[in-house]
């Protein structure tokens, strides 16, 4: 894609990007096929499913950061909205099918799940609720912020505060969503017991396919007129406005789309890990999402996916085997990417071992004031 590479890209480079996207899409399709074929252990299927959710989340962030130049450090909020709604759905369903009183009822001091959760027992309703509520929150916040032209670092900091506020709220038991413990003890997914290998496989497959669909869809959207206008917004918003475009609408549209995709990722993630709690709202997680994008390469959808998978793969592997090493690896990776591969690891092929200062000179800008 034209976007993040900055000023000195030839059109041939666009084609390369196309191939990377195609490669990633192919890899996703192959993964889906492998899942269908079976033979992978439950643990690996589950891991693939989780990675697909993370990748979808990163993809969502890349839409706004990579294309529209708006960095959100609060995307965990939308991820968590999806997660909480599906959590309520799973609890309702578990109670309906098994009749077992979940933990949350006990430690919240309830006698039953709140009445207003009842409609969420139906999955379509839950899906609609998750997408609608994330859209509503994104729209309200985005409209207010973009209207008063909050941008750049300000926007990043305010979104961080927003997700932090949400975390503090959800930590409170009184807020009504299980407090710090959140929701757990899901017994049933789509009528099947959660231990059933078919559930694990189905969820992983759904996640991979959702990611694939999002990749292809967003890619088509981004190489079209909408994508070009977003890039124009990122590079010079005042100019675009003075050409007669309401950039507020453009930004709001991509912001809401991104939020909805993040909510979808959360919705797929929670049944796979079996728990949702306010940790998903911690500012660190939201920063990490941006780190995935930065490492993979911004403004090029495929980069976000590669970054998310790569970082989480290392994290999973190291947390269990060489736990001491993980924070050093992560911070090292970010610093190296920031200094040497300004456009992420997808730049590997372009990199020559020159002096740092040269890389410096080639760096693009964030296109923020």
């Amino acid at each position, binding site marked *: 894609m034209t976007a993040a590479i900055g000023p000195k890209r030839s059109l041939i480079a666009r084609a390369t990007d196309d191939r990377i996207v195609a490669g990633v899409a192919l890899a996703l399709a192959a993964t889906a096929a492998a899942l269908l074929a079976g033979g992978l252990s439950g643990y690996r299927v589950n891991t693939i499913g989780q990675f697909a959710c993370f990748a979808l989340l990163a993809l969502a962030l890349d839409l706004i950061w990579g294309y529209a130049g708006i960095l959100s450090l609060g995307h965990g909020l939308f991820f968590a909205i999806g997660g909480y709604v599906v959590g309520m759905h799973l609890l309702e369903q578990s109670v309906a099918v098994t009749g077992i009183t979940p933990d949350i009822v006990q430690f919240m001091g309830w006698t039953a799940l709140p009445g207003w959760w009842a409609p969420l027992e139906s999955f379509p309703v839950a899906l609609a609720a998750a997408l609608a509520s994330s859209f509503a929150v994104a729209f309200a916040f985005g409209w207010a912020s973009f209207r008063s032209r909050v941008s750049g670092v300000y926007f990043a900091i305010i979104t961080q505060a927003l997700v932090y506020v949400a975390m503090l709220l959800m930590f409170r*038991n009184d807020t009504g969503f299980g*407090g710090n413990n959140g929701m757990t003890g899901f017994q049933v997914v789509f009528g099947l017991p959660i231990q059933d290998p078919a559930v694990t496989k189905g969820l992983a497959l759904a996640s991979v396919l959702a990611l694939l669909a999002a990749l292809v869809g967003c890619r088509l959207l981004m190489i079209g007129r909408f994508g070009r206008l977003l890039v124009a917004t990122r590079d010079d918003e005042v100019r675009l406005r003075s050409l007669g475009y309401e950039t507020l609408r453009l930004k709001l549209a991509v912001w809401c789309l991104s939020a909805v995709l993040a909510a979808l990722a959360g919705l797929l993630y929670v049944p796979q890990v079996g728990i949702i709690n306010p940790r998903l709202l911690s500012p660190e997680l939201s920063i990490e999402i941006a780190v995935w994008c930065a490492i993979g390469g911004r403004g090029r959808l495929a980069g976000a996916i590669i970054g998310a998978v790569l970082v989480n*793969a290392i994290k999973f592997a190291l947390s269990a085997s060489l736990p001491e090493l993980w924070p050093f690896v992560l911070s090292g990776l970010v610093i190296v990417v920031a200094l040497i591969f300004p456009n992420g690891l997808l730049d590997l092929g*372009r990199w020559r071992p020159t002096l740092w200062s040269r890389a410096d000179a080639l760096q693009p800008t964030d296109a923020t004031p």
Partner: protein
Amino acid sequence: MSPFDRRTFIKTTGALAAGAILPLAAPPLIQSARAAGTVKLGCLFSSSGTMANLEGRLNYVAKMAADEINAAGGVNGSTIEVVTSDPASDWPLYAQVGRQMLAETKVAALFGCWTSVSRKSVLPVVEQNDGLLFYPLHFEGDENSKNVVYVNSPPASSVLPAVDYLMSPDGVEAKRFFMIGSDYVWPRTINKQLKGYWKSKGIEESAWKEEYVPFSFSNFQTLVNQVRSFADAPGGKLVVVLTVVGSSIPDFMREFANQGISSSDVPVLGLDMVEADLEGLDTQKLVGHLNCWAYLQQAKGEANQTFLKSWADYVGKAKAPFRPDVAIDPMVSTYDAVHLWAMAAKKAGSFATPEVRKAFDGLSFDCPSGYKIAMTAENNYVSRGVFIGSVNEKQGFDVLWQSKDAPKPVPMSQYG
């Protein structure tokens, strides 16, 4: 397409492929060669993040206990290998690492978690994989999973005796209570049960106050003002029941002392307070405040002396970054847990969870606390003794009171 671009394409798809394969390849990497005659135990204690200072030491205790068992010939002809991890005080990561350990590393049992929320995170994982989690902390009770062994005490057999003591003529005849807790399930549930308990004793609702603070909250000025004011209000002796956790504990105690409140004015019962929380505090002004656990370092008896010496030796040997002269309850509970598991596995003649679980009935172990701790077929709880500790000048706790024997654990609270 120019060669340059082709190279880029190959490299990037290569990177992608590596990214996709890594997670699949990683577990075998971790698994390392499974040597004949070893059995693995997994630890879920954080060595980074907010819980690191407390949980980190438990990794070493588990290893120490395993070494003891190995030195005595191992279990069922196998030697124990303890696999540690770092869930980084990140609750979902506990679940993830737990899942990995059970499914890929094939550990025979898990030992881990400090906060209730991390236990609740791991719970679905052990239930799905039919694993065993030994949980070494006292907690809010009201949970009874067949996949969790609750090595420490539920409130009915630890907190309530301590509160009883405070309300008795031997204590301070406490009439009023100020509950301050971190805002999460353990403090909330404990306080709910306490309120139920007090109601059952006919105490009016105006006799208590309840406040919650966020995790790692540190600015206790206003809250301590409120405590002072409430203490001087009419109605009898006030006691603070403190259920904040982590770094909030020392921050609260420091502010409390600085505002000139001593234990003779308003005693604090710090339910999660351990020696490690007093590090860095001038305890001269905190003498007399209380905690309550199933083990205190000052516990009498041979078993405790042996344990303390082993720990001091082990810290030196393993170069553990923790004080060799401090032992806290969760350390002993972890130590007990490893031994209980080994005894059960030996009794069952197997490492399989269902068999080991069956063998729990009738187990007993000479805990360093001086009590003989025991398990029954009824549930996965362990009966432990109860200590009330009193802060001394040396950043430690003296035993102010201890129970006659190890009371039978009551998992489900009858209050609230």
